[in-house]
């Protein structure tokens, strides 16, 4: 349609992004890969160490701990968050009064700035002066130390995460609204009950959306930083030392830039593997499998 002489005009329009891509993305990706094979404090020139950083990482107990904590939070946190978001979306899709208000209320916490959320929950979960433990004790339930107890710090972070499930919930809600009503009517005529239609219609029809939300969940969970930095800063006893926090410490507190770059590349690799595993799992279970 347009002649080749106009190509340069198009590139002129793309040029801000192209320059940004080169300077702020492409160069840093290559540089961090190269740095990962060096000893580098960010100021004096990098010293080549070959695979030194990678070898050292696998001997670093904090690295192993960070991987364990990160995978724990993802493996336990994501399924719980997804189940609760689906349930919340189902509830908000029923014909109740003030539905719009309830939808807004459920969504509200997810727009609270991360630092505010982290401080709020740190205070809400305070074992002595926070309201949650008082409530639990009134019910005769055990009142754990939450963020100051290594055994309960990770569950506390998962709980905080569940408070902000607004974004997957909204996406599930949209997914539910896209399921044609005729499917349920046909199922009802065939004598299917509520549970049968949920497992045979709703879940299979929702599986592409579930896949999307789980993938997003994996990516964000592997990069989790701010909430944890503010709430526990990795403690108590390194029980919440997650991967991104250890990268931050190595890079910006100990100025081990090469070591931290190696960690960043392993993070990229781990994220890619996790996302592939999710796709594999859904390939077996998802829409097509259930529709046979």
């Amino acid at each position: 349609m347009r002649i080749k002489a106009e190509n340069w005009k198009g590139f002129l329009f793309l040029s801000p992004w192209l320059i940004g891509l080169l300077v702020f993305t492409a160069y840093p990706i290559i540089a961090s890969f190269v740095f990962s094979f060096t000893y580098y404090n960010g100021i004096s020139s990098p010293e080549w160490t070959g695979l030194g950083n990678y070898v050292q990482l696998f001997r670093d107990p904090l690295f192993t701990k960070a991987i364990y904590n990160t995978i724990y939070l993802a493996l336990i946190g994501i399924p719980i968050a997804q189940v609760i978001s689906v349930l919340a979306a189902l509830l908000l899709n029923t014909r109740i009064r003030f539905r719009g208000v309830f939808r807004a209320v459920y969504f509200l916490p997810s727009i609270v700035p991360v630092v505010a959320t982290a401080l709020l929950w740190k205070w809400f979960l305070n074992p002595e002066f926070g309201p949650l433990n008082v409530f639990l004790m009134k019910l005769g339930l055990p009142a754990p130390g939450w963020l100051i107890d290594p055994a309960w710090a990770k569950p506390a972070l998962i709980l905080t995460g569940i408070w902000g499930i607004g974004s997957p919930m909204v996406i599930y809600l949209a997914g539910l609204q896209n399921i044609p009503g005729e499917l349920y009517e046909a199922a009802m005529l065939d004598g299917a009950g509520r549970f049968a239609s949920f497992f045979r219609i709703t879940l299979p029809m929702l599986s592409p959306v579930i896949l999307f939300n789980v993938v997003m969940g994996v990516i964000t969970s592997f990069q989790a930083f701010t909430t944890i930095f503010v709430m526990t800063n990795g403690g108590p006893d390194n029980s919440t030392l997650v991967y991104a926090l250890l990268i931050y410490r190595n890079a910006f507190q100990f100025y081990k830039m090469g070591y931290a770059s190696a960690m960043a590349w392993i993070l990229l690799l781990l994220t890619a593997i996790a996302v592939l595993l999710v796709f594999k799992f859904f390939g077996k279970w998802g829409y097509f499998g259930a529709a046979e």
Partner: protein
Amino acid sequence: MNRRRAVWAYIPVIAGALFFLLPLFWMFATSLKSYDEVFAFPPIWWPPHPHWSNYRELVTELPFLRYTLNTIFVTAVTLIGYMVSSSIVAFGFSYFRIPGKKALFTVLLVTLMLPPQVTMIPQYILFNKLGWVGTFLPLIIPPFFGGAFAIFLLKQFFDTVPKEFSEAAKLDGANEWTIFTRIYIPLSKPAFATAALFIFIWTWTDFLNPLIYLNDDRMYTLSIGLQQLSTARTTAWPQLMAGSIVMTLPVLLLFLVAQKTFIKGMRVGGIKA
């Protein structure tokens, strides 16, 4: 699916609403408590004499005015940078036939998924060499090179602008820049609103970048200021909660005003707030 009102649903719906609202209520109530009330046992749900003075102390005893002004400055410049550059780039992607355009657009989408940790360290070293660390520049200059999310969103919208409009303008002798500014921008207000809303919230609440690049207390944004305050004064919960509310308020107001735009953006981009 069910044509009758679902009465059974009210119990879990209300329980859920309490779970989402009670912490917010607790945040607000704490912001109005005296120190004695904060550390009372059993906890007091609502202080009998609300201490509104906690909010005044944010300004009189703590540098919250400074933090707020810094945040407004960074957010405003970032917003302008992203909107101007992203709309130009999005127009380039949508309007022109460029060899390799599809591949470039795929690259754009891939950068959305890239963990920031991979690029963060060389970026820091680069800005350090430029002498930018400790200034606002690392926060406000990169936005002028476009943001993948805004480019994506605007490009999708630009694609729906009928070609007849620009063809007609071309016959009248309009060049590409005129077509962009006189036809595409005025027609795409909803897309601009959505992109601006999300960029505003991301920048207003951003933590990692200010944490890495700002090291002078007088330049802190609200998120860093609050976090630093929480480590410096571990018991100042009324002020911390008051500060958190002040920081949340603009986002909350935007949400109440533009709820529809918000939800639409979430569905299009599938991105987190």
